[in-house]
């Protein structure tokens, strides 16, 4: 028996695929042709342009696939068990959250994972095969001893980095799971007529709210901080070793290295500073004295402002439009200090600010 809804979806999916293909072709036309060279990590793409389009398309495709999946699975029909249905819609591999994270590891971010892959491929193409050190350190000897030890250190650093990334991914997965629970809680609050979710877009938006809340909660934990720091640090160690190996190779070829150029830059900047300092010796010599006098003056001003009879008053906090609740919150969090102005546009400067000498013309 014919199923008009499913037939429509099948036909539509075919049409949609053509459209996505057209977008992809559009992107490909704009991509610069890459050179297949295992020893060459392509430079990051421009931060705008293709990178943005690529990310945009990935995000949109994730959302579109999810909508199609939802419609095809009968999400739009009245569910018997809406919680079970939610699991199908958001818990599977097709859920769009992965797209959001997958998409941002782009060339613009210098795709660390991509760089490791390039390095591993390059090492393997270079005849290293199964990298030494990947199964634990092995004592090396002979003429290539130093090289072998460096390779082992590199392999160990890569492993360490991959482990740190796995811990990070585990936290993202945990946030994913908590997002589902939050979504269920949010939906449970909307069971009564008038508050129900009546479109896939509304369901998606609610899921985004839930997912961002869950993510933010985890992202602010000490555990996340520790894992994040470890991930960055281990990636940097790998990268630093890559650079050292590249530099060694360049030195053998007589090519100036980044360290050498950077060192020149450091010396040049130091010379520029010295030159400027030598042009204004008197000012420099007096700086400490001037600072000490300013401190003294500042202390005296505060002493005068906080005279023995002056009762401390809270600093006022003005919203851009007065009388918002947020303003009151601000006031309560602002500690009492000294009296001052003002609600923008209504009050006049305090006596203290008026008594401050106005800038005079130099002539």
């Amino acid at each position, binding site marked *: 028996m014919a199923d008009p809804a499913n037939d429509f979806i099948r036909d539509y999916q075919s*049409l949609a695929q053509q459209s996505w293909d057209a977008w992809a072709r559009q992107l490909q036309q704009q991509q610069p042709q890459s050179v297949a060279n295992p020893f060459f990590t392509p430079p990051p793409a421009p931060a705008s342009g293709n990178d943005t389009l690529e990310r945009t398309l990935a*995000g949109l495709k994730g959302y579109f696939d999810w909508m199609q999946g939802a419609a095809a699975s009968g999400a739009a029909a009245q569910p018997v068990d809406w919680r079970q249905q939610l699991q199908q819609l958001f818990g599977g591999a097709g859920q769009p959250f992965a797209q959001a994270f997958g998409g941002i590891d782009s060339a613009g*971010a210098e795709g660390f994972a991509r760089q490791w892959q390039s390095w591993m491929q390059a090492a393997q193409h270079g005849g290293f095969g199964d990298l030494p050190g990947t199964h634990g350190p092995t004592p090396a000897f002979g003429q290539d001893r130093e090289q072998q030890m460096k390779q082992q250190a590199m392999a160990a650093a890569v492993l360490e980095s991959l482990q740190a990334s796995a811990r990070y991914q585990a936290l993202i997965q945990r946030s994913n799971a908590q997002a589902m629970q939050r979504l269920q809680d949010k939906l449970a609050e909307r069971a009564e007529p008038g508050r129900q979710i009546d479109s896939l877009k509304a369901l998606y938006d609610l899921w985004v709210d839930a997912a961002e809340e869950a993510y933010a909660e985890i992202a602010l934990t000490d555990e996340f901080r520790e894992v*994040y720091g470890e991930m960055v640090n281990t990636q940097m160690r790998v990268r630093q070793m890559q650079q050292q190996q590249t530099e060694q190779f360049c030195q053998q070829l007589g090519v100036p290295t980044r360290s050498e150029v950077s060192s020149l830059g450091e010396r040049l900047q130091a010379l520029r500073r010295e030159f400027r300092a030598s042009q204004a010796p008197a000012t420099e010599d007096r700086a400490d004295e001037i600072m000490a006098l300013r401190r003294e003056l500042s202390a005296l001003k505060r002493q005068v402002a906080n005279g023995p009879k002056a009762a401390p008053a809270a600093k*006022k906090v003005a919203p851009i439009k007065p009388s918002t609740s*947020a303003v009151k919150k601000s006031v309560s969090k602002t500690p009492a200090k000294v009296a*001052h102005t003002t609600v923008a*546009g209504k009050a006049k400067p305090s006596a203290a600010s008026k008594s401050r000498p106005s800038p005079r013309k130099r002539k």
Partner: protein
Amino acid sequence: MYTPLRIDPTKALGDIATFQRKLAAGMGHLRSMREPEYANTPRELVYSEDKLKVWHFIDHGKTTSKTPLLIVYALVNTVWMTDLQADRSMVRNLLEQGEDVYLIDWGYPDGADRWLTLDDYINGYLDRCVDAVRARHDLDAINLLGICQGGAFSLCYTALHADKVKNLITMVTPVDFHTPDNMLSSWCRNMDVDLFVDTMGNIPAGLMNYVYLTLKPLRLNQQKYIGMVDILDNPTELENFLRMERWIFDSPDQAGEAFRQFIKDFYQGNKLVKGTLEIGGRPVDLSMVTQPVLNIFAEQDHLVPPDASRALGKHVGTTDYTQLAFKGGHIGIYVSGRAQREVPPAIHEWLRQRA
């Protein structure tokens, strides 16, 4: 018993069809569009050094202020957020109010700028920019408006060069970097910044953008673009969207040494509020900021939490301190419709009372 999901099957299929139709048509619209321009409010170059430029905006005789206002932007992203599009330009609105506006454009650092320190930026570049504006107006002191990281720079500068600043305005400026809701601060607390900078040199803009996107990964990496589909058939809105995209991703790299010091001293050490910060070997003491201070923060700021900005009131030495709470986010405070109506007039009025 009711179910929270009442999705009409016909409507769902219709939504999918509409989405796909807009997307298909959108490709044509995108092909026909050019790179959106910023507002490009008429301006003149008044000072330059290395990659830095100081722009003076042409006021067409509307200036009523006697003291010029120098905008000090952050090193991250470009300064054109302040002059994004004709009807969403803080600069243009400040000019309309009668302010005489200057803007420091830090430029795009490259390998030659790798060793620029905070001392070079604050006691060097910024000081010379201030001097250039003071000289043009023959004044001892000018008004400073620091934005985000530029606000932190302005605070340091004012503490170190008090005689050159008449009034100080800080916008969405982090002061206390250790508030519990500061995600960026939390993430970089365990980073080995020395290893990071020694390895990366300058910090690539793409990497910075990656970090910002992961603050709200779903909203910034997916939901935003799904929303874009709805405006693909609206050339004006699409152009505005693409202009914002341009601004977000057209970012400068960060000079390595300045980045190292900023992360270590501000984000990790929280030295600005602890009173232990030194720039160029000189202590930065916020109690030395005795000028009138206007501190504007955004209540929904996910980059600089409101509490991180509010902290300023506890640490500056001035007796004339004002806080303005703006209902919006870190970017909305410059480009939202509400911002155009509220922020520049508030700044101008505050300055006018202290002219």
